[in-house]
């Protein structure tokens, strides 16, 4: 069973108590009525789907009920660190920035035809 550290409960709790809540640190544009459809789609629909280090929101729904942010490795599924909601993006010691691997169909399967 995966243990997740809740920064509000200040201890490791079972994954059963948590829910994933999407990518973290997505700022709502200040003038949302003025932006173009493309910019809105980028903010509202498009997510990075990064391989490796990624920042996500999680919620300790069957515990303290709070949302918090987590740095997680999408390859190993390992939680690298968690921190309270509202804090800026925290650097993870010893882990370099996300590998910019975007595996589109054209890149991975394009030559196989």
């Amino acid at each position: 069973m995966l243990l997740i550290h809740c920064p509000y409960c200040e201890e490791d709790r079972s994954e059963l108590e948590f829910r994933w809540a999407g990518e973290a640190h997505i700022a709502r544009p200040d003038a949302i009525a003025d932006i173009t459809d493309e910019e809105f789609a980028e903010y509202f629909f498009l997510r990075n789907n990064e391989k490796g280090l990624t920042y996500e929101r999680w919620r300790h729904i069957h515990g303290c009920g709070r949302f918090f942010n987590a740095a997680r490795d999408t390859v190993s599924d390992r939680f690298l660190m968690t921190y309270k909601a509202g804090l800026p993006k925290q650097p993870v010691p010893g882990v370099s920035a996300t590998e910019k691997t975007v595996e589109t169909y054209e890149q991975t399967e394009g030559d196989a035809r």
Partner: protein
Amino acid sequence: MAEVSSSKAARTLALSGIRGRAASVSIIPAAPAERVSLRARPEDVTALSSALELELPTKPKTSATNNMRTALWLGPDEWLVIGDGEGESGLMAACAASGVLCSAVDVSHRNTAIWVEGAGAAAAINAGCPLDLSLKAFPVGACTRTIFGKVEIVLLRTGEESFRVEVWRSFSDYAYALLAEGALDATF
């Protein structure tokens, strides 16, 4: 026309009449109690504490008891306050009299409680709950909201071998059945 003998309807507990007993665990529905789901800002905790005559805990996983009232820390700004004993315990009135902005919701009838007691109590709860219930990690007085099988519960340790399981009343059948099942496996 039929005469209405009393204006008050008779109250039946969700788990009325049930009494479970395995070799090392007893599972008994608790008596009705008044319960308040309380949410308030950190700066208002002192005023609420004095109004409730009870120090609201501010550390995770802790509870405070005074004069039949128990306050359980559920989150950084959230408590479950339980008033035991016969009749109205005046929790809502006390919150209203505190004079601070807070959200106090009477959830007395939303929850029902189950006492789990005996040498195998922790093992019976661990049948559906992933928490570490050793005395080191979950001492007497510790409390938390957690998950039990498929339902959410609030767990309070009232003694080394006694737990209070607060569960929503429509889930109480399920919680009771799973506890009874877990108790059968708890051999000591």
